[in-house]
């Protein structure tokens, strides 16, 4: 039986409207330190929109969100500049979000250390995804600058090895008191609650 610690992210009765379509409504959940929520559902049911609402990029139609901690977002797109090197891309984003940590170690962890000075334009899709994930290494744990991680299909384009690295990253973050919300088709190798979209009034 999970013992819920202090809630650091609470969502109640959230609804999302895109144009004339109501994607979901009545979504409620609460997450405490070290907890994870996996968001599943068919395409077009609002998984990405839910994450974007939490991230503050999209306005909710209805409902309340409260959180004290900062968030870090991983979208469908990688936000990498092809003309900059692997390390330059990583350094820029970590710097913009006020993160600290060993950038080279982060690259090594995701198997990109040997190509740190290569331009990001020549990377494969899987490598790009790993590079995007690498920045999260500098925001591990509940006490980091960005303890709440919002991830939109973090495992897309990753091979088995990549997915193992992702699972390790998430497990470490959770064990250090961080929070993870991830939208996924295939599921992740971590212990997490599940929120199924595509039905009205779902909760975790």
């Amino acid at each position, binding site marked *: 039986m999970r013992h819920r610690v202090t809630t650091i992210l609470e969502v109640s009765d959230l609804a999302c409207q895109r144009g004339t379509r109501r994607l979901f409504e009545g979504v409620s959940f609460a997450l405490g330190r070290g907890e994870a929520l996996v968001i599943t559902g068919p395409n077009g049911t609002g998984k990405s929109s839910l994450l974007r609402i939490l991230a503050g*990029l999209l*306005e909710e139609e209805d409902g309340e969100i409260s959180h004290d901690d900062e968030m870090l977002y991983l979208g469908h797109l*990688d936000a990498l500049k092809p003309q900059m090197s692997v390390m330059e891309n990583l350094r*820029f984003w970590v*710097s*913009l*979000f006020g993160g600290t940590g060993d950038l080279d170690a982060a690259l090594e962890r995701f198997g990109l250390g040997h190509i740190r000075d290569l331009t990001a334009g020549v990377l494969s899709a899987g490598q790009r995804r790993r590079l995007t994930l690498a920045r999260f290494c500098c925001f591990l744990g509940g006490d980091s600058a960005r303890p709440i991680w919002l991830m939109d299909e973090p495992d897309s384009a990753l091979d088995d090895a990549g997915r193992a690295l992702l699972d390790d990253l998430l497990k470490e973050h959770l064990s250090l008191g961080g929070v993870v919300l991830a939208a996924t088709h295939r599921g992740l190798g971590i212990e997490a609650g599940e929120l199924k979209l595509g039905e009205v009034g779902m909760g975790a």
Partner: protein
Amino acid sequence: MSAFWSLVMRDIKLAGRLGGGPFVGLGFFIIVVTMVPFGVGADLPLLSRIGPGVLWVAVLLATLLSLDRLFQADFEDGSLDLFLMSPLPVEMQVLAKCLAHWITNTVPLIIAMPAVAFLVNLETGILGPLLVSLLVGTPSLSLIGALGAALTVGVRRGGLVLSLIVLPLYVPALIFGAAAGSGDLMGTPMLFLGAFSLASLALAPFAAAAALRISVS
């Protein structure tokens, strides 16, 4: 390096590495200035009189053309989403991008100005005031342009609409800039120009930041 300067340096780096750097804008600027004598005739006294105005218009057009790329790439690759979540206020980020834009697009034009001034037979005494007027006035072009770029990012025919909405807002800068560029250094037009630039510095980042949030949602 602080977040602000990371962003400035990143944009400067990208401008340098992306096809052509400052030279494409410079080339456009020079060609536009060259068109004028073809249009009005090689009447040296006439060119001399209209010189500051022509050079100002050419700088304005060259700046305009570079604006639709200001946020476009970031919008397309998902960087804009992350910008909006950064601890650095979006207004500061707009300022950082405007600074980088000004350095990479406009400053090369100002540097090249003494060479280009010959094309319009600019009087030697005028070059100084002209350069100062450009230094004082062109930041407002980047700032106001950023608002236009933020409003039209990712929109089809965005570049065209961008020009349409930004040019009327440029009118005071052009009027005061061209006048300041033909006259004395601390005269009325230069002061108005400075005031206009300061006002855009104060207001444009907020409007542009609001526009970015609107464009992303």
